[in-house]
């Protein structure tokens, strides 16, 4: 499986934020996108997920599931968690596991299992709204585990996480790469993936 980004251009508000960006990523690899604020890190991830229109160029996931679009094989995690405060953590994750994983995949983890990985097993029955910021983030990370999708698009995944949770998540990311997954993460902080390559986006141009 290979993620090919070919001369990708994206403009926002009339300004060309990404100008003919090209890179490729093979299964099992991680890419860390760095750059100052406004360099286009979030724009790149949203464009990869198909949430922003592309001004030019193409994005393809070669060797993935046939007939599936790239967006349907990708997890997108941004600043918002995608969880309902009124529902419990378990109900939220159960919903996303059913909604995002259409076909059963043995690489998908059960909700209990995923909550154990991020260390939230004890608050599974608590409403999502009462969790702390770091716990909410960990619940959002658990969403990546309950439905296996090969490509992870992570926008500042480590926000509000303590050191122990970062290490747990680094292990989860390594496991994902070992299963043949791909990770594109935009971050200012070290992810804990030594083997990850880096893509530095330039300053505001």
């Amino acid at each position, binding site marked *: 499986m290979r993620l090919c980004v070919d001369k990708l251009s994206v403009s926002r508000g009339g300004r060309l934020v990404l100008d003919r960006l090209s890179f490729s990523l093979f299964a099992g690899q991680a890419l860390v996108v760095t750059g100052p604020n406004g360099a286009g890190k979030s724009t790149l991830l949203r464009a990869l997920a198909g*949430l922003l229109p592309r001004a030019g160029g193409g994005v393809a996931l070669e060797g993935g599931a046939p007939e599936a679009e790239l967006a349907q094989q990708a997890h*997108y995690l*941004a600043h918002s968690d*995608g*969880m309902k405060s009124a529902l419990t953590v378990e*109900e939220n994750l159960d*919903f996303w596991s059913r*909604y995002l994983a*259409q076909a059963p995949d043995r690489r998908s983890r059960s909700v209990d299992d995923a909550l154990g990985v991020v260390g939230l097993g004890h608050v599974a029955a608590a409403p999502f709204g009462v969790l702390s910021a770091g716990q909410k983030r960990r619940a959002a990370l658990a969403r990546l585990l309950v439905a296996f999708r090969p490509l992870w698009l992570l926008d500042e995944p480590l926000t509000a996480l303590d050191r122990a949770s970062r290490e747990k998540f680094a292990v989860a990311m390594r496991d994902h790469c070992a299963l043949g997954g791909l990770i594109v993460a935009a971050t200012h902080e070290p992810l804990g993936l030594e083997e990850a390559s880096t893509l530095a986006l330039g300053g505001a141009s």
Partner: protein
Amino acid sequence: MTSPLAALFLREWRVARRIGGSGAMGVVFFLTLVAIVPFAVGPDPNLLARVGPAILWIAALLATLLCLDRLFQADAEDGSLDLFHLAETPLELAVLIKCAAHWAATGLPLVVAAPFLGLMLQQETMALLGVVATLLVGTPALTLIGAIGAAATVTVRRGGLLMALLVLPLTIPVLIFGVSAAQAASGGTVPFYAPFAILCAITLAALALCPFAAAAALRYLGE
């Protein structure tokens, strides 16, 4: 209950029924609106019996709109809407399921409450049945048409008022045929089934068209 659509329905239903959801709010608003009408128009039984179906319909329309403005906005704020774009389930189908769950949680209680409130407005048995039947058929159309407005105002902060301005003119046909069928049920020169059949047709047309319009608005505004 393992399919993605069933999971989405269950989630929307739970959110609407939990504390802070729109389920109970709509019924209470409906009750309040109907209860204040006799204070405004006076307690004359004949007058109340004549305007009753219209009052019930207007109150149901406003109660439906009141609950609808957060239909997509809540999902846009917590990031769920982005994830809906990434799912294999088409956005149109997700919109339809969200509308169905929303109607079951907020529209259906209005239909159930209507006959009890109708008694306060001096409605006879046939008129009560007429109001319940027309609301049962007509409120799904209100929810579906309102979903277009909710989708079009998804990025507008406090977009509820703007949504009402956009949606109210579109609901006029539903209101006209709903009220005329409800009034025809208790007598009059018009047969009941003629406006009722048109009301059914409007709901079916809304069912076919509105999910596409709302999903198109969400796609366009999501960019």
